[in-house]
Structure formats: structure tokens, C-alpha cells
């Protein structure tokens, strides 16, 4: 399984499945990261974490710990 955490900056991927539960998963999904969404990893913060994504035409920042829960293809 490849997680969003491992995706290099600049690549665009499709979300395959969301792992995790409760508040974290719900929040990620509410922001539009669901199965089938196209996500671009735009940037990594200067200190290596969090990362910036482009999804549904806007910029979203999540920590690598959360990115690890997102399985991509």
C-alpha cells in the first residue's frame, strides 16, 4: 500500500481508501479528500512537516501523520 505521505512533491495521485476513524477521518473527508479524489502534493513545510495539498481547487495542509492514513494509487 502506498500512502499519501510517500508521494513526492509535485505529483498528482488518486485516493484509493481512507484508513483511520472518528474525528480525524471525518475531518479529512469533510475537507473533500474522499475515495476517487485527485490530490496534488504541492509542498512540504520548511521543517519537513506538515505538507500542502491541492484538492478540489484549493490548498489544504495536513500533517504527515494524517497523510499516512490516506491510501493512494
Amino acid at each position, binding site marked *: 500500500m502506498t500512502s499519501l505521505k510517500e508521494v513526492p512533491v509535485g505529483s498528482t495521485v488518486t485516493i484509493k481508501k481512507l484508513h483511520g476513524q472518528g474525528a*480525524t477521518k471525518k475531518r479529512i473527508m469533510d475537507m473533500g479528500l474522499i475515495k476517487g479524489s485527485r490530490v496534488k502534493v504541492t509542498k512540504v513545510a520548511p521543517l519537513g512537516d506538515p505538507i500542502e495539498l491541492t484538492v478540489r481547487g484549493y490548498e489544504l495542509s495536513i500533517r504527515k501523520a494524517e497523510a499516512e492514513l490516506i491510501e493512494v494509487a
Partner: protein
Amino acid sequence: MKIALAGNPNSGKTTLFNELTGSSQYVGNWPGVTVEKKDGHLKGHKDVIIQDLPGIYSLSPYTLEEVVSRRYLVNETPDAIINIIDGTNLERNLYLTTQLLELGIPMVIAINMLDVIEKNGDHIDLKSLEKRLGCKVVTISALKNRGVDKLVKTTIEEANRNHIPDIPAIYEDATLDLIKRIESDLGTGIKDSAKRYFAVKVFERDEKVVEENNLQNVLQAYSNDIKKIETEEDDTSESIITTQRYMFIADIIDAVYKSGRAQGELTLSDKIDKIVTNRVLALPIFALIIFVMYYISVTTLGTWMTDWTNDVLFGEIVPGAVTSLCQTLHVASWLQHLIIDGIIGGVGTVLGFVPQILLVFLFLAILEDCGYMSRVAFIMDRILRKFGLSGKSFIPILIGSGCGVPAIMATRTIENVEDRRMTIMLATFIPCAAKTELIAMISSVFFHGSAWVATSMYFLGIIVIVLSGIALKKTRWFNSEVSPFVMELPAYHLPQFKTVLMRVLERGKHFIVKAGTIIFAVSVIVWFLESYTWSLQYIDPESAALSKSILRTIGEFISPIFAPLGFGNWQGGVSVLVALSAKELSASTIQTLAGKAGVASIFTTMGGFSYMLLNLFNPPCIAAMSTIMREMGSKAWGWFAILYQVVLGYVVAFIGYQMGTWLFFGGSFNAFTAIAILLIIGIVYMVVRPGYKVDELHGEVVKA
């Protein structure tokens, strides 16, 4: 008539609210939480109240803002909802819309940023959108005040004819079928028009909604049916609903929206962000912005204005004028003393910080409004979250080096409650302007004015913040819930004058009102205690007033508490009490009490050092304490924060004095030294013991 204003953060909601209500705003907190509540009268319609809801992305049960909003919408059913949407980001904004539409409340959608949409050449088919969503859609530009009149007219019409939106066709057949069956079993306690909302919440197993509305039986009855769908879809019911909402929206976007820009084309905001959060340049740019902000508001302009207010306005002009007025009116000397030294002195000291505070608020409002504040969190998150703080905690802590009150108020920019509470507790540990006076005095009396004293106190402040953060983060109090860091980085835009100004004035007002009430009262009490004997005889301030006052007796009474800190005399006790009301007085009181004999007559070197340590970590002043009480959101949390600071101040001073005396001044090893060593061991244990961590996979907090 009540109209609720709902929408995503950064959708232009505040701008629209200001446009709708003008200056008739009332700002407070939602009951029991520190979520800001704003309402106001609609301009030109005195009978219409606009209720501004917190900026939210969803009506999920996971954040305070969302819970507060949905409780208001369901329990107090406004006559209509205005759902403001960022027209440059329809897809994500419509997600909240699909939830609002199910509440069964008349609603109008306001697509904002019409000016930007036109500039980009985007096209939105409004007729088709209205048909698919089943409610009126109006395009506006809150910033340029376009379309707002039409929005108001449409909303009032919809409210008057009580037009409930048609329920949009969001769900797939199997899900919809089950939701409809749940609807039919909800009972009579729930209005027909709101049944869809509740049925979906039951399907999602939303514990809060189920409990509050006694729907346990319904959930029980359909539990197996819900499980069946979950197995078929290989997902939780909550996720199934979210996915179907977004699929419904994707279809809408395909049909009604055409972007004017070529795919992948960078906007101006994207280009700015490429530089500002660049891996190499981000930190230097951040440092530069912080430096400019600090330099102007704390070091130069702010200090000049504060010095002028303190020394000239409340030091000469006001007291001079009042003195001559009192003399013309032949006011009794005690009353004159009360007014000039007690009230003007007390309130003036605090009001002196107003210019500095307003400048800090001005910079904060600009950083927030233009979109940089979320980038600060993005840049700083990695370091600060190790100490239980948030990326946004950096700014309050920095402001704390000027004054604690605006520092605590600046924590409002932190969304997560635990991060905010932690920041409030720790932000005042960096020596503020008032504490630096004390540091300067102790340094000049006992340490030959060495600059190392001040430098090491700043470092000690940082160390205490870091260790406190680590230790507190390991307690259960700061791990009550999982708080994911999922944050929108909004597009940059020019800060808007009106929004910035209103935010500055509103925050400044709180501070001034506080100075006018609490600090006024405390000034009078302190004045009374130091000006009267127990037989209520007034003491002439020119004579050695404090030595006969009530305050002295109190100082004597509590002085044994401070014996282990090296200053168990009444002067020490009095100074600690007075300094608790304001650190500006921590140095001057000692000097007054010591008189010609000098500060060294009251304190030994280590005693003076430990007096300084105690004051550095004690709560800064009455104004800061009342701000802590307010911003913590509950009395219990407020007292916890203040008590933590009081105890911490005592412990640090205790360790400092006992260890210092034993190690450097040839003191004997006694019971107190042993206690000091035990305290150090205790602190080390609190810092290194295993705490809690978030199990991301299962979404819960577990013991590490």
C-alpha cells in the same frame, strides 16, 4: 425576524456580516464555550437580527464551532439561513450547503466574490444551480457591496413565505431508501421539515444528536440495516454519506460551472505562496515579518506611545489637572490621594498599554485577514507541537514579551481548544515589559548590572514554556480528544480596511472596559489597604505610610510562606501581594519599602534573586488574570491556569533559592534543600514519563 449567516471560514462571511449590520454588532461568547458569538441588526430593518455563526466546513460533531452552529440552527430555528459561498471554490463550499439544505429552514445561497469570478472569466449557471439545490441563489461581492441589497430582499421574502427548500437528490438508492425508512420512525417530536437532517444523523450514528433527541431506540432498530450497507460499501456510514455528498456536488459542478482559467494556471496568490512558504525562504521571511511587527509595536512606536501615556498623560497632565481641580474644590486630602494615587495611578498604568496593545492587534488583524496566519501555523507547526502547542502559538508567546494581555487575547487565532488553553497558560512566562523593570533592578542591586541576568531570564522563560508544555501535554487534561491538523491555506488577498479596523476596535474595547472596571476596583482596594490602619485611621502618604497600614499586617501574616524562598519579612509579603496586582509595582514597591536603606537591606542576594523568579512566573497582573479567566472559557480552567502559574512561580523560586544558597553561598544542606532536590526529581519525572499519544488509525488517544 432572525436570520442566520452560515458559511466556510474564508468565504467572506465577516465582510458580509459587517456589510449587513454596520456598526450595530454585539460580540460575546456562545454559552459555555470560547467560540465567538456575533449578532447585529440588519441595516435599515430594525426588526431583523442577523446571527453570525462560526465559520465551519461541516455540521459534524467533532469541533466546538460545528456543534455550536448546528445546535443553534436546530434548537433556535432561525426564520432563514443565508449560506455564503466562496464562488472561487464552489466544490468544497457546497458541501456544507448540502447539509444546511436538509435542516428544513428557508435558505438563500449567496455566491460571494462575484468580482473575482468575473475577473477570472468563470461562468456559473445560476438557473441550473437553483433547480438542482432547490433554493434561491444570489451572486454578491461583499467586498464591493454588490448584490447585497438583492440578497437581503430575497432572504426576507423567503423567510416571510416560509419557503422550505426542496430536499436535493443527494443519496444513492439503497442509502436513500434506508434514510426514508428511518424518517418514518422518528416520531412526532421532530418537525416533518427537519426529518431528513435527523434521519441522516441517525444513519451516521451521531452520538450527540441521538442522545439529545432520545433517538437511541430508532438507532437500535435500524442498526442492522446500517451495518448491511456499510458492509456492502466497505466503509462507515459517516463516510458513505460524505462520499455521496461530494459525488452529488461533483455532478453539479460539471453541469453548472466553467472555469475561465486554463488548467494548472497559477493565480497571483499561488505565485505569492510559492515564495512565502518556499522551503528556503519561508523561515527568513517569517522572521522578517515578526521582526517588523515586534519592532514597531513593542520596541519603537508602541513603547513611545506607551511611555508618553504613562509618563506624560497619566504621569503629569491628568494628575496635574485633577490636583488643581481638587484644590479649587477643596477636596479632602484622603479623597485627593485616593483619586490621584489610587485610581489614576492604578488605572493609568494599565491604560498606558492601550496604544501598544492596539498596535499589536492591528498587526494581528492584518496577518489574519490577508491569509498569512495559516501559513505561520504551516511553517512553525513542526517545532511547537512537540511542546503541546500549535504553530500559531508562536505569535502570542512573542507578544507576551511586550504585554501578557494582548498575548492571551492573540490566542483567539488558534482554533484548537487544547492548544489555545496551553498557549494561554504559558504565553506570559516570557518576561513582559513590566517584569523587565524588576529584572533590571535586581540585576543592578545584586549582580553589578550584568546583562546576563536579563538574557538568562529570557532563556529560563523559554525553558519553562518548553518543559511545562511537555509535562502538561502528558496529562489527561490536554489529551481529551483527537485534534487533527487539517487546515485550509486560504488564497491571499489584500487586508480589508473595515474588517481589520472592526477587529482591532472590538478587541481593544474588551481591554479598556476591563481596565475601567476590575482594575479600578482593585486599585481602590490596594489604595485602601495601604492608606489605612486597622482602626481605620488615614495615614499621611508622606510619612512612612506602609509601615503602619493594614497591608503591612497582611504582609506579616503571609510572610512565613516566603521564608523558604529567602524573604520571610513583611516587606517581602507586601511586595508579592502588590506585585500580583501589577508587575509594574514589583520593583517600585520594594524600593519604597526599603527607603534610604536600599533594597539590599530587605533581601540577601539569593533572596532578591528568588523574589525575581517568583514574580517572573506568577500571573503578571490583575488585567492578565481576568483575561485568562475570560479566554479559558470556564471558571475551572481559568483557576487552573492561574493556580498553575502561582504554584510554578513558587516552585521555581524555591528551587532557585535553596539550590543557589547551598551550592554557591555555602549554605548547609537541610530539609528544605532536600525538598528542592525532590521537586527537581518530580519535574524531571513529569517531563520524561510516558504520556498519551494519538492513535491515528483508530482515531483515539491512548497511553504511550
